[in-house]
């Protein structure tokens, strides 16, 4: 009887493995199909990438996505400035310095942080960060790049911390012992041995955070001010690609130009995420070969 259990297990595992490819391809086909008519028809690529006029519901509609692209990029970039050092620091502390109960408690807390729904983060952005930014910086509006970036940074930090900590823990203790036996201090061991040995995992953690930033919708919608604008300071409101899709898709006619333009934003998001992951993959492979 063992042989057909083995066979069944093989099929089951194969289906599980292949499903990732099926879903990715399926999503790509679906988004492209919905957006393709628009991309090949009314869309002007020049306008899409260089104009900030996003007026899909106007009598004379324009589809300039530059402000949305810049909005997403600036919020994500700001968030990464905050969360990359914060998460790597937290991961180093948990993996290399904390022991016993401190370590366990911190791990649980970080994992709990990762489980907070994004709408709650958005709520924090609107009701706490918003008045706080107005008071601290004496600006008229607290919803913008700073607010959304802080919220997104805090949101991305726990998952980055967890992945980075896993990567650091995957470095065998024998390396640490061997390096310390050579007279290296704890910090020298971390900088010269542990971090280089885990850089693939650390890079993966950072890129996962970037991906999280690009894809996050609700919190950014609530904290960014959702105004079409090319930001000149961190206090300016912006609008993100994802937030635009979420906010507008419900009001469109299926198959219409507005509908198609939102799917075009989706294609753009898909391509960017795909390129980030592909780059990460190539970089990681490059490091491995060396």
């Amino acid at each position, binding site marked *: 009887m063992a042989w057909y259990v083995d066979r069944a297990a093989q099929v089951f595992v194969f289906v599980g493995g292949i499903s990732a490819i099926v879903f990715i391809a399926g999503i790509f086909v679906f988004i492209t199909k919905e957006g393709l008519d628009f991309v090949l028809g009314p869309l002007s690529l020049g306008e899409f990438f260089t104009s900030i006029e996003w007026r899909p519901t106007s009598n004379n509609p324009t589809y300039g996505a530059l402000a949305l692209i810049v909005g997403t990029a600036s919020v994500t970039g700001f968030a990464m400035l905050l969360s990359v050092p914060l998460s790597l620091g937290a991961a180093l502390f948990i993996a290399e310095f904390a022991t*016993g109960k401190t370590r366990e408690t911190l791990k649980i807390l970080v994992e709990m942080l990762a489980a907070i729904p994004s709408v709650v983060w958005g709520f924090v952005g609107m009701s706490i960060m918003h008045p706080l930014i107005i008071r601290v910086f004496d600006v008229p509006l607290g919803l913008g790049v700073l607010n959304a970036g802080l919220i997104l940074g805090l949101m991305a930090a726990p998952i980055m911390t967890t992945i980075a900590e896993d990567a650091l823990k995957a470095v065998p203790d024998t*390396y640490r012992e061997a390096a*310390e*036996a*050579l007279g*290296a201090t704890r910090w020298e061991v971390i900088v010269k041995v542990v971090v280089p040995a885990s850089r693939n995992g650390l890079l993966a953690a950072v890129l996962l955070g970037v991906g999280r930033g690009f894809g996050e919708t609700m919190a950014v919608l609530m904290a960014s001010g959702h105004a079409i604008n090319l930001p000149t300071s961190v206090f300016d409101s912006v609008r993100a690609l994802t937030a635009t899709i979420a906010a507008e898709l419900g009001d469109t006619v299926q198959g219409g130009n507005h509908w198609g333009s939102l799917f075009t934003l989706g294609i753009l998001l898909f391509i960017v995420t795909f390129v980030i992951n592909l780059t990460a993959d190539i970089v990681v492979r490059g490091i491995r070969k060396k």
Partner: protein
Amino acid sequence: MVDAAPETAVANGIAGPAYDEPPIIEVRDLNIGYGGKAALQGVDLDIYRHEIFGIIGPANSGKTSFLRALNRMDAFNTAMEVRGSIRLNGKDINDWRNVYALRSRIGVVFPLPVGLPLTVYENVAFSPRLRGIRKKAELDEVVERCLRRAALWDEVKDRLDSLGSLLSGGQQQRLTIARALSQEPELLLLDEFSIAVDPVTTMRIEDVLKELRSEMTIVLVTNLVQQARRLADRTAFFLMGELVEIGDTEDLFEGKVTDQRTTGYIEGRFG
């Protein structure tokens, strides 16, 4: 190199153990436990300069714990408790406020080769860099010298920039020996270094160790009693956390023992 061989030895052209000098290591009433469970009890022994000091005994006899205590590696394992005194050059090792400086004077070779995830060159240059050597020419010189002395240079000189982990098991173990030598240690601790090494390489490393004795003191933990016989000037026999016997290696192997368990182990009746 570190300290020159004692005058007499240099004068004779032979490097032998300096039994007439104060010991480099003095261990008194050493007790090691893990979470209350004793691993080593009441050990007293001295190790002299330019001596190869062998430690034999079956598994779980406390040999590795002893080595780890010498290097204060107990800091890695919170469950490991070390009591008693260990003096290096007359100074209690717990009085070294900078444990890293202490460790940098002691080279360690682990049972399985632990190549740092670095290139062959960087593995050997790691410790010199920590000491502040920055000049490429100087590092090149140290790396070549250490690799030559570990009998590895000819095999790796063309691939110094490839990862140490790509070498064969025996080569990796010689790499860790080269790395330990790059510390210019006074004391070299070897913990069953030949476990993952083929017999030919083992012999080559043994020849290296015999030469190194003129420059440093070597503590050799081994589970091969014949290896202790080939190399060690004096040998200690550990059994179940107890130092059963310590004496001139040849005496032990010729049966001049105070405890019959020693002969029993050496002759392979147990262990």
